[in-house]
């Protein structure tokens, strides 16, 4: 540690060139080293859960979709799974396989988005531009398949809204081939690129025991060698039919998080191919009554950022009595605080803060559940 005796406060946010979303990181620094950090995530609080209580379930589908623009399919999937659970009528099998396709397509675009943003944060804008150009392949497929690039309202209560046609399946197979080639290229290029290695190896260390004690989820946990994945642990939609491998890495640093996400994109590509080849026939939507039977239901979905839980309590009317959302970024905030603090031989420089923040793939729009009133 340096010989400075005074600690300085450096606030990062809510508007800062290194941030994409309003969040406040209050750093206490000793020279170049961060020793203490306080995170304020309340800038995005919109009162989503309260708003859900004022609307019917059908209207809520469109509200819940707008919890997060990047992982909106994971949110609507979780919402409809909860309602189908309360009704006791799971969606038709074809709809469940189509849901897996939509979900994995979203995971591809989200991980590519993250890879670009992470490259931007380490100052490697060339990679950012390359990755986002390839991300357009997945967005074009999403537009063709689900109806819109980002918020597509694809998943409906009781099934899905659009069917897969042979033409779209052909286009999707071609797109997947192209993406697979690009991912192999990125995997090779990134593991040899000195700029990336210098900025990410050994940065943002989080041990496997910390992952367990701080209950981190998603790629952050898997990059520390902990194989938690809701798709494998508690299959939903059609994941019990789709073979998948839980990607883990033992590196515990930002570099292994990059590698885990790249490998997950490859896994998602394989899952989409399997679903296209084994698409069962049958209806894609079943009609469910507008009033939902009284009861509680908790549904879990593996969003691109980790485990996403939706809880709904119904009193038998057509509006939820209580709606609760727990998002993966919220679970990862304690790990973020741990990674940002220097302790012993592990030092965090101010320049590494954006990289470490990006390494958890933050999505603060999902996360803000309460706000402090001053």
């Amino acid at each position: 540690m340096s010989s400075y005796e005074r600690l300085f406060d450096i606030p990062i946010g809510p508007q800062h060139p290194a941030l994409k979303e309003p969040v406040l990181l209050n750093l206490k620094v000793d020279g170049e080293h961060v020793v203490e950090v306080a995170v304020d995530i309340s800038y995005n609080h919109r009162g989503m859960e309260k708003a859900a209580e004022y609307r019917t379930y059908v209207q809520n589908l469109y509200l819940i979709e707008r919890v997060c623009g990047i992982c909106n399919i994971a949110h609507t999937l979780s919402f409809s799974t909860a309602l189908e659970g309360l009704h006791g009528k799971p969606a038709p099998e074809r709809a469940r396989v189509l849901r897996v396709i939509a979900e994995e397509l979203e995971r591809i675009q989200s991980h590519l988005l993250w890879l670009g943003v992470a490259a931007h944060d380490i100052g490697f804008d060339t990679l950012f531009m390359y990755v986002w150009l390839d991300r357009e392949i997945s967005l074009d497929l999403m537009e063709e398949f689900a109806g819109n690039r980002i918020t597509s309202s694809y998943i409906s209560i009781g099934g899905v809204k659009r069917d897969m046609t042979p033409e779209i399946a052909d286009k999707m197979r071609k797109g997947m081939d192209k993406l697979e080639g690009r991912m192999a290229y990125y995997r090779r290029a990134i593991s040899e690129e000195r700029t990336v290695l210098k900025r990410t190896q050994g940065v943002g260390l989080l041990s496997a025991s910390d992952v367990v004690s701080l209950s981190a989820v998603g790629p952050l946990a898997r990059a520390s060698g902990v194989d938690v994945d809701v798709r494998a642990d508690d299959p939903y939609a059609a994941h019990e039919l789709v073979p998948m491998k839980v990607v883990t890495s033992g590196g515990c640093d930002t570099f292994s998080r990059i590698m885990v996400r790249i490998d997950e994109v490859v896994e998602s590509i394989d899952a989409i191919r399997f679903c296209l080849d084994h698409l069962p026939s049958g209806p894609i939507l079943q009609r469910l009554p507008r009033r939902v039977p009284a009861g509680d239901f908790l549904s879990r979905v593996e969003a691109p950022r980790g485990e996403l839980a939706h809880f709904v309590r119904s009193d038998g009317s057509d509006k939820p009595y209580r709606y609760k959302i727990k998002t993966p970024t919220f679970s990862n905030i304690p790990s973020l605080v741990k990674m940002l603090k220097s302790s012993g031989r592990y030092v965090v420089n101010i320049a590494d803060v954006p990289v470490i923040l990006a390494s958890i793939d933050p999505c603060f729009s999902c996360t803000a559940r309460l706000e402090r009133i001053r």
Partner: protein
Amino acid sequence: MGLRDWALRKSPWILHFNTGSCNGCDIELVATLTPRYDIERFGMYMRGSPRHADILLVTGPVTRQVKDRVVRIYNQMPAPKSVVAIGSCCMSGGVFSNCGKGPCYNVYAGLDQLIPVHAYIPGCPPKPEAIIDGVAKLLEGRKAKEVTTDAARTK
């Protein structure tokens, strides 16, 4: 057309501020920077500081927590400045504009209640083409205004 007006129209520097958006509009806005859409061909350049920016692009419903910040950022920008509201939430509150009575308890229904807005881009989220079109129309509007002031000046 003076040098200043020419620079403002041909090379507007933009600042992006997220006031509580769901990230849908933000990722479409970032997509406009990337090779397929590439707004740098219009001379637009994303800046990190409000003091360098000519155009403020705002996404998302304005939450109470972020209200003071967006007003402060607007005041920090040098004149002449323009504000663009991107997406339904920023224009009118969108899905958050109706929760029983009025908008959600933590959301302002529309950015124009707080600061003047010069262009609105509807959509949830608007496509990158729509964002480019909106900003290009804003610059066209600037040109029209400048033509009228030039005409008034020559009289």
